[in-house]
């Protein structure tokens, strides 16, 4: 009873911190356009937007720019509460509907990459950590370090040059030519494989490190002295402990996945959330930028809350020695 209370207490404290992080993110997003030198209107609607003087006056009062900052912040939060992320004057659409249109595709292939990356990365990582002296373990770890130390876009560019420009096996851009499943798969194979390889190599390294450090503890030795076969030590005892840091880091990696997806979408010209952000950067479409940053942050925070709950379920000791 005491333990579960402690875990619960731990979870509440964590969630409180996440809320605080979110408030800080909100403050950054709120203050950045308003504190910049120059007219905040230009920073709030994006640059190179022509607006009539009358429209500017209208917007001024809509944003409440003449009222004190804390009132502006309150208005801003109320708008967010109604899922109003602002209006993109470049795309002539509300940011939230733009994001919903684009995010579905991005989430689709990020989701596939997460599943494949975990399947490909975790198993071999565990094996490589357990038998770390074998030549193939060294070989795989070197490969994983090599891949995870390349900037994400570089690998996509090299893949693009080889398989698209040189061999012409895969289409150059877009999600599909005709809207059917074979065309979609044909277009998505390369982006998904690049993202998967990246993600798998990170998972591989994390899992390998976790198994390596668990292997040196006393309990595997004790279990071995009881006469339990090697593979049961790994699957029955080590795995459960080694998976905890993996879960935490997978959640923290969510932001990394989104940024990886951003570069992959730019390179492969996919019309997802990443290229929406890229276009927004090029045209300085600030509402889209801030809106997508908020959405990504919410995703990351939710993933972290989920991982904390999972950790508590898997390891009841969580939070006890804090």
């Amino acid at each position: 009873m005491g333990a579960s209370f402690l875990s619960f207490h731990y979870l509440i404290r964590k969630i409180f911190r996440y809320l605080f992080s979110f408030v800080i993110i909100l403050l950054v997003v709120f203050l950045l356009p308003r504190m910049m030198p120059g007219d905040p209107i230009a920073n709030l609607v994006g640059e190179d937007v022509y607006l009539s003087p009358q429209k500017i006056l209208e917007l001024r009062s809509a944003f409440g720019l003449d009222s004190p900052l804390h009132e502006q912040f309150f208005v801003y939060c109320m708008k967010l509460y109604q899922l109003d992320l602002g209006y993109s004057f470049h795309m002539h659409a509300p940011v939230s509907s733009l994001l919903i249109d684009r995010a579905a595709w991005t989430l689709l292939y990020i989701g596939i990459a997460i599943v494949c990356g975990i399947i490909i990365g975790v198993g071999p990582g565990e094996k490589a950590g357990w038998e770390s002296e074998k030549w193939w373990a060294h070989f795989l770890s070197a490969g994983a370090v090599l891949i995870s130390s390349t900037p994400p876009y570089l690998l996509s560019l090299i893949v693009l040059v080889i398989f698209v420009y040189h061999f012409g096996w895969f289409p150059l851009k877009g999600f599909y030519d005709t809207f059917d499943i074979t065309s979609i798969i044909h277009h998505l194979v390369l982006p998904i494989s690049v993202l998967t390889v990246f993600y798998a190599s990170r998972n591989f390294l994390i899992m390998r490190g976790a198994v390596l450090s668990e292997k040196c503890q006393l309990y595997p030795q004790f279990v071995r002295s009881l006469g339990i076969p090697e593979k049961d030590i790994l699957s029955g005892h080590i795995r459960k402990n080694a998976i905890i840091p993996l879960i935490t880091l997978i959640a923290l990696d969510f932001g990394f996945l989104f940024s990886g997806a951003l570069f992959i979408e730019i390179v492969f010209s996919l019309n997802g959330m990443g290229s929406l952000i890229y276009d927004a950067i090029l045209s300085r479409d600030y509402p889209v930028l801030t809106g997508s940053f908020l959405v990504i942050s919410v995703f990351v925070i939710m993933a972290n809350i989920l991982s904390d709950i999972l950790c508590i379920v898997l390891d009841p000791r969580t939070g006890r020695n804090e």
Partner: protein
Amino acid sequence: MKRGRCKRTLQDISLYLCIGVITLFFILAIIPEVFAPFPENKRFIPYMDPDTVHFLGTDDMGYDIFSLLIYAARISLLIGFCAGGFSIFIGTATGLVSGYFRGWIDDLLMALTDIVLIIPKIPAIILISAFLRPSIWILILILGFFSWETTARVVRARTLQMSTSGHVLSARSLGFSSYQILISDIVPVIFPVLLPKFMLTITGAMISEASLSFLGLSDPTMNSWGRMISDAFTHGGFIREMWWWFLPPAICISGAIISFIRIGMVYEKPGQETMVE
């Protein structure tokens, strides 16, 4: 036994190789004029193939790619090192203070660390750079500020262990100030943890800089390896399959990153390896 020694030598060779690579890049960064065949801003015919005069041909503006490559080492290393140093400084200071003094200051600093940890790094850096259009020094500050939290955690954990150890207690009972103890008794002991963290933050900063250049968000006046790849992408180097344009800077970035990581693993004992985060 023999096999073990062979492996040992192999590891030594790889370490010396990595130190050699970094030293070479450093020399290039300090005195590029000596090694570059042409000054940075001398223009020739654009899109030339490699020949004996231009080892790597010329780019879309007619600049000699080999010279650009050498001059770019300066910016890439400068950003990596300064951002890494800044981040390791904040991280170490935070970790030392919260691990040594404990109590409310520990709670406060660790809560702060958790809060920074949660913010998605690259998206945040992209957003801030899009607004600020940073010069190189602002960029270094931004990159450094978003990477100190893992260092802080590791340093705190080690400092917590250290602060009850014999030599720290005796230094304290001899009346040395906390500052003195932290600097001369704790920092040297936790150095083996700091070095890999330092190297990892350097590589992180270099990767982030290259990514920002690719998005066109870093300082437009400076020429880094990331910028060269981005130019090759936006100005037709990839469609023409001019591998001599985009592959050399890519190899330089990856080579530097791998060398830094390898150097950071010097203190590693078998069984307790650095986690690449």
